[in-house]
């Protein structure tokens, strides 16, 4: 067997090995080098897998048997169009955020903890990649906990003491969510006697509306919704995003909730099947209602935030609403909108949080704790940091869904899906909720561009290139994927066609 045949295992093993190595090295610089190398290797692996899927032709699936035990007995890693797409997003974000981390955490995390930061980052990446690649239900839970535990530590590394309470709150909510997921998987295992997702799907057909299966569906839906911050279950998110170190916020906002969406899609379309989830239960209506609540409620709350990080954290909850809205349509265009928005929102929000990290870093005197990016501190910022502010505005335009940015593509497909269903009022709702996004992005524009800077604060320059370059690469990506959609939309449509038609 050549190396190319082992890419699915390498995808997870490389970052997993980097974590203990980083701990053993105990030096921030060396740990940085090891983990960054592992993240770039993981990114290369993900691209390799994506290309392999493309070469395999229509509906190609790579099945990797861990330890050469054939499924359903052994653990199977299963890569298809959807999972390879999510793998590219997650590993690509890690590969961009890690170089950024080096100068970002210098001001936000005590130097003696730097090597632990990199170790935790590698574990978080391992977990997220593992969730995406595995074809085994219990494996999903284990990887979910690996990534979650690492995430709690990363959030608790924030300098502000509120980072601790945010991490604690997330730990409680996240563990409840993960336990709900494991209860759901337990019921499925009791009913089918298998943990392999593909095998499970085959065996569920005969017993699909029995009560334990419905209970499993309920537990899994609630548990995963907690993890992806669906509207009433999003309470952990704003605090966690606000108080975590900037690089952590950017990485989590772009990947963690997105991977949860992937798990939800996997269970709904590949395991339970659409006939149970969407035809026999009122789930689409419930999800539609909650999505609308998120799109309007969370975006509305975002307008009134004074802290820029918190504002965009609430905006994330709102944007998750668009993703679940696309799911609730149960159509190729709707699901494609969800999948492509998962990617488009990931890169736009990642770019915004990276740029905010640049503001935080630039506004601190060397060695001092940075002030929070509240609007009071941001007046006239565009004069001091024109590139940073312009980047945030471009990212904001993508959140609004202006044509020419990536966000427009996802909204366009959402509207197409709504029109297919003949729900004209939803088109209005999508456009109206975009106006709320205009409002919160405008708040930033107004403060940064039209308010005079406080005297004595107009001299300081841009954030350092090490912070600007990764952020601007993502900003460029939001524009690029708004104009050339062959990668993002192509993958999403391809994945959606397979999922909606056959569940594979």
């Amino acid at each position, binding site marked *: 067997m050549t190396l190319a045949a082992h890419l699915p295992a390498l995808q997870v093993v490389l970052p997993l090995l980097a974590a203990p190595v980083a701990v053993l090295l105990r030096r921030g610089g060396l740990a940085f080098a090891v983990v960054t190398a592992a993240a770039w290797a993981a990114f290369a692996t993900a691209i390799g897998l994506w290309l392999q899927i493309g070469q395999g032709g229509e509906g190609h699936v790579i099945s990797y048997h861990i330890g050469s035990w054939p499924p359903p007995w052994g653990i199977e890693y299963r890569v298809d169009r959807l999972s390879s797409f999510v793998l590219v997003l997650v590993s690509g974000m890690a590969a961009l955020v890690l170089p950024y981390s080096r100068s970002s955490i210098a001001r936000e995390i005590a130097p003696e903890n730097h090597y632990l930061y990199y170790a935790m980052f590698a574990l978080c990446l391992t977990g997220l990649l593992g969730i995406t690649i595995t074809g085994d239900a219990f494996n999903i839970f284990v990887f979910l906990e690996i990534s979650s535990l690492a995430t709690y530590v990363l959030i608790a590394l924030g300098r502000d003491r509120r980072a601790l309470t945010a991490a604690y709150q997330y730990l409680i909510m996240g*563990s*409840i969510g993960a336990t709900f997921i494991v209860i759901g998987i337990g019921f499925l295992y009791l009913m089918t006697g298998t*943990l392999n997702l593909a095998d499970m799907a085959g065996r569920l057909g005969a017993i699909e509306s029995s009560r334990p299966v419905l209970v499993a569906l309920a537990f899994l839906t609630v548990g995963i919704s907690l993890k992806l911050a669906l509207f009433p279950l999003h309470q952990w998110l704003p605090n966690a995003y606000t108080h975590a170190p900037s690089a952590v916020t950017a990485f989590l906002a772009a990947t963690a909730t997105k991977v949860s969406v992937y798990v939800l899609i996997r269970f709904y379309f590949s395991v339970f099947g659409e006939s149970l989830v969407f035809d026999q239960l009122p789930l689409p209506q419930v999800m539609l209602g909650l999505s609308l609540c998120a799109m309007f409620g969370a975006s509305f709350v975002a307008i009134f935030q004074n802290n820029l990080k918190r504002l965009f954290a609430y905006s994330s909850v709102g944007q998750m609403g668009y993703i679940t809205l696309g799911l609730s349509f149960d159509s190729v265009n709707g699901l494609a909108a969800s999948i492509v928005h998962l990617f488009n929102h990931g890169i736009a929000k990642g770019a915004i949080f990276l740029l905010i990290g640049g503001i935080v870093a630039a506004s601190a005197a060397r060695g001092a704790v940075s002030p929070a990016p509240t609007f*009071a501190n941001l007046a006239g910022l565009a004069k001091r940091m024109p590139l940073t502010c312009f980047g945030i505005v471009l990212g904001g335009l993508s959140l609004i869904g202006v044509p020419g940015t990536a966000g427009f593509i996802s909204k366009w497909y959402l509207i197409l899906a709504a029109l297919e269903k003949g729900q004209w009022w939803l088109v209005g709702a999508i456009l109206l909720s975009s106006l709320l996004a205009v409002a919160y992005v405008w708040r930033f524009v107004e403060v940064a561009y039209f308010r005079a800077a406080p005297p004595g604060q107009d001299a300081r320059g841009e954030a350092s290139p090490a912070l600007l370059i990764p952020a601007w690469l993502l900003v460029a990506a939001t524009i690029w994927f708004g104009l050339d959609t062959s990668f993002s939309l192509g993958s999403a449509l391809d994945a959606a066609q397979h999922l909606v038609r056959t569940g594979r």
Partner: protein
Amino acid sequence: MNMAAHFSHFSYIVTVLLMVAGLFIVIARGNLIKKLIGLSVFQTSVYLLYIAPGKLIGGTAPILAPQFSVYSNPLPHVLILTAIVVGVATLALGLAIAVRIREAYDSIEEDEILALDHTAADAQGNGSP
């Protein structure tokens, strides 16, 4: 009905009781340590949910031998060993964060911590920091 039939659902009843009790403690208690205890009870109930159906009365460990014909399913035990490790790690991390919170706030009561955060926010002069 014999006694065995009465007790056939016993493990499920205990599972549900533990599950609900644990979740209730997490929601109803404001003390950070008590919340973690509730979370542990909640997670423990899942161990029982997996383990109990895997045991067959009279079944042995799944080692093939001519004198045995009934075997218990070993897989749930293996899964729950993993889940126990995860549960211990979660509890340890939760307690570690609780210790750090105690150092930073001098309290482990949720309402007192929230009140401290609010006064700090008011002192800074911005309502939602």
